[in-house]
């Protein structure tokens, strides 16, 4: 770690995690996360207003904790970074307001960056050599996106994304149908452990030949959700084996994610696949991805889970790369952009 590398604090508030990260260059110094997940549990999903209130409460203590954890002083920072989007607008605004004021207070440059590209930047903090181009599959409660990354700071292409629910949301909704608590991912995983993934053949969204012609890399989980709900309804009378339903549902999700991701690798002649997002915690997804990628000759990278879920370190890491690449800071003239396209890696770049 060189003292010449930029020392950056990143603020991430796009969903239900208040993430404050501090990096020096590509070295992780702190990854502090305050989650409001427990507050959403009784609602069965992330409630935007609850998340935004929690961000405001958590922000200051999280910054203080991160600074202490990293063993730095705020005035030592070379830059402040923040997620401008995509995400929940009201939640993003808390981070944007705080980041701007912190940058002005410290008289440091501010980098406003893209959350999805941040997920890719998280991989830089693993300390391993990262190679581009790579295909990236980002799966969480907020997004399901397939990206082609030719260059982290200048060339990221959206190949496809979900047309309805994010994969994580699908897990939450199916968990509810099965009477399991929130968040659904770990619950489905737990129950599916004893189930037969081939017991029920649930539909793979947007995988028919006609879909593959027009929506090859897009995802849809609403049909799957309906199919599971209907199956449960029809079999309720004679008793439903939740384990089989959970395992078969999970298999349908995993299958479609991995199939499309590896198809993207093959079609773009990119033998590398990066996985990111909180749903990567799902062991079955990782196992199937690793197994099928190996068969296809594709190398898979999976950062540690603490860097896969939403966090501020990935935002700081992306800004650090922008700085290392000589990019100018952002102006103070930007807002929260809930639908920020992935091609906008940095927003409000100064002239």
């Amino acid at each position, binding site marked *: 770690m060189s003292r010449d590398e930029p020392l950056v604090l990143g603020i991430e508030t796009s969903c239900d995690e208040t993430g404050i990260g501090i990096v020096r260059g590509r070295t992780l110094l702190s990854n502090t996360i305050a989650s409001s997940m427990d507050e959403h549990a009784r609602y069965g999903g992330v409630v935007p*207003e609850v998340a935004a209130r929690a961000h*405001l409460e958590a922000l*200051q203590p999280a910054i203080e904790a991160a600074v202490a954890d990293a063993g730095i002083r705020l005035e030592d920072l070379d830059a402040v970074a923040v997620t401008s989007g995509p995400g929940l607008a009201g939640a993003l*605004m808390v981070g944007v307001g705080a980041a701007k004021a912190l940058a002005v207070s410290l008289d440091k440059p*501010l980098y406003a960056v893209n959350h999805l590209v941040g997920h890719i930047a998280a991989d830089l903090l693993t300390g391993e050599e990262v190679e581009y181009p790579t295909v990236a599959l980002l799966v969480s409660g907020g997004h399901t996106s397939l990206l082609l990354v030719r260059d982290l700071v200048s060339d990221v292409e959206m190949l496809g994304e979900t047309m309805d629910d994010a994969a994580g949301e699908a897990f939450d909704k199916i968990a509810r149908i099965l009477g399991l608590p929130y968040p659904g991912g770990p619950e489905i995983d737990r129950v599916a452990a004893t189930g037969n993934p081939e017991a029920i053949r649930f539909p793979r969204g947007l995988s028919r030949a006609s879909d593959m012609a027009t929506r090859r890399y897009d995802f849809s989980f609403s049909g799957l959700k309906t199919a599971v709900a209907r199956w449960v309804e029809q079999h309720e009378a004679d008793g439903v084996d939740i384990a089989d339903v959970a395992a078969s549902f999970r298999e349908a999700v995993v299958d479609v994610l991995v199939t499309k991701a590896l198809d993207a690798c093959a079609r773009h002649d990119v033998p590398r696949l990066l996985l990111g997002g909180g749903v990567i915690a799902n062991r079955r997804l990782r196992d199937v991805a690793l197994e099928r990628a190996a068969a296809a000759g594709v190398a898979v990278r999976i950062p540690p889970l603490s860097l896969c879920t939403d966090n501020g370190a990935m935002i700081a890491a992306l800004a650090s790369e922008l700085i290392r690449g000589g990019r100018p800071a952002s102006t103070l003239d930007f807002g929260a952009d809930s639908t920020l396209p992935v091609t906008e890696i940095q927003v409000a770049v100064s002239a």
Partner: protein
Amino acid sequence: MILSIDTSLGTAVAVVEADGVVRAEVSSDNPLGHAEVIGTLVQTALAEAAHGAIGATAAASPVDVTHVATGMGPGPFTGLRVGIAAGRAFALGRALPVIPVPSHDAAALAILLADPFAEMPRFGVVTDARRREFAYSIYEGLDDDGLPIRVAGPALIPRDQIDAVLAEHGAARRDVTAIPATMIGLVAARALAAGRDLAGAEPLYLRAPDVTLPSAPKRVGT
């Protein structure tokens, strides 16, 4: 000097001295776009406090911010939070204390100071709370610390009931569409001098988060 921020209606930023002398005041009346403008407004306020308003030729005088005052609402939540988050982060950056101020107190002080010699009857500060509701607080004069005496509120009321409520309190209606950040600063200065806390750390939301509870989980299984 106190850096004051309020985003309960528009976005307002000021720098005031402890005795109330205004060094800078900038604002945007836009009821949206708080996150877009907050950084520039804080930066501009600090620059104006040092150099005078744009175009002024006075030599720069140092700006020594000692406190940050934040308007705590009531106001539409999404915008309200931006100013509070910004105030806290600015304070954190320079290790300064934050003084939370009920936004209506600042509006009331502005009304009471507009004509200090007038005998001001009891009045109600009324602001937009969206969703066909108003937020209101009732005030009557200044106390010995020079702070507005709040006798009721802040509270929410359906718009068509505001006049009846004000009549009950015997209060004149004062609709307010902008909170002056200078008055946030002055209220904070007076509270500080008197050693009083006027608000807690929690914004004056006055409304529980809007949630639609999912229907009861369907129970299946053997």
